[in-house]
């Protein structure tokens, strides 16, 4: 029993500092409404180095993670598997759409950047 609790505690600690990604637009929107947050929808691809940098480096930065967790539900859509919901357009990947409770685009960030700059840009949206 003790071992099981330890494993659970370790697992929770492991994921506490990580972002949880949603993959379904409606589910993300519902979750955002419930938690009184906005949806940050990332449109990306696995073959895009800029997208991978955001996922593997920027989204592991403590300050970025903490800020995003506080304000957003993160939804990731893949350019090869998912079509963008109606009303959303992009010119390149990665594109970050910021979506309000009514499923409308409030803001957009095009392209990736270093953690400090991305955080600055996120804060500027608020």
């Amino acid at each position: 029993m003790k071992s099981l609790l330890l494993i659970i505690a370790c697992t929770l600690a492991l994921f506490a500092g990580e972002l949880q990604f949603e993959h379904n637009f409606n589910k993300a929107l519902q979750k955002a409404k419930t938690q009184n947050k906005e949806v940050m929808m990332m449109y990306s691809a696995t073959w895009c180095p800029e997208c991978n940098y955001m996922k593997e480096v920027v989204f592991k930065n403590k300050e970025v993670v903490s800020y995003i967790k506080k304000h957003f539900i993160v939804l990731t859509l893949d350019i090869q598997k998912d079509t963008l919901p109606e009303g959303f357009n992009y010119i390149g990947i990665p594109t970050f759409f910021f979506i309000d409770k009514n499923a409308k685009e409030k803001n957009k960030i095009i392209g990736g950047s270093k953690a400090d700059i991305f955080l600055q840009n996120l804060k500027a949206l608020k």
Partner: protein
Amino acid sequence: MKNIILSVLICSNLLFAFDINDLKKLKEDGDCPMCDLSYADLKGLDLSMSNLNDANLTHVNFTNTIAHKANFSNSDLSHALFVNSNIKGATFVNAILRDVNFTEARIWKGNFSHAIIDNCNFSESALGSAIFDDNNLTNSTFGGAILYKTIFKENVIGIPK
């Protein structure tokens, strides 16, 4: 009189170092291989997929330009400005890059193989997955640059830390 004519010729040459027809061709076709565009102001243009192979691009201003997958191979880009440009996937193979300013440029997947890189400024640029092969980077600066999965082949001298 001869002096006046000579002065006018010298001045006009300084003002328009590039070939006007070449600039027109670039703007109309989007391509201009082997062209003379030296000193041209190409600020903010969309040159995505443009072929600028083997061109004279010395002192060209590419500030804020979008040039995804543009081909700058074999071109002379000495003293060119790429500040804040978006040149993802651009190819600089065998290009001459002397005193080029790439500050804050987005050069993801750029290919610099066999380019002469001398005193270039890559500060705060994004060079993720870019390829450096057979280059000497000792006197170029990379402060604050994103070097995520950047490929530096074994024959590169002065690999930034």
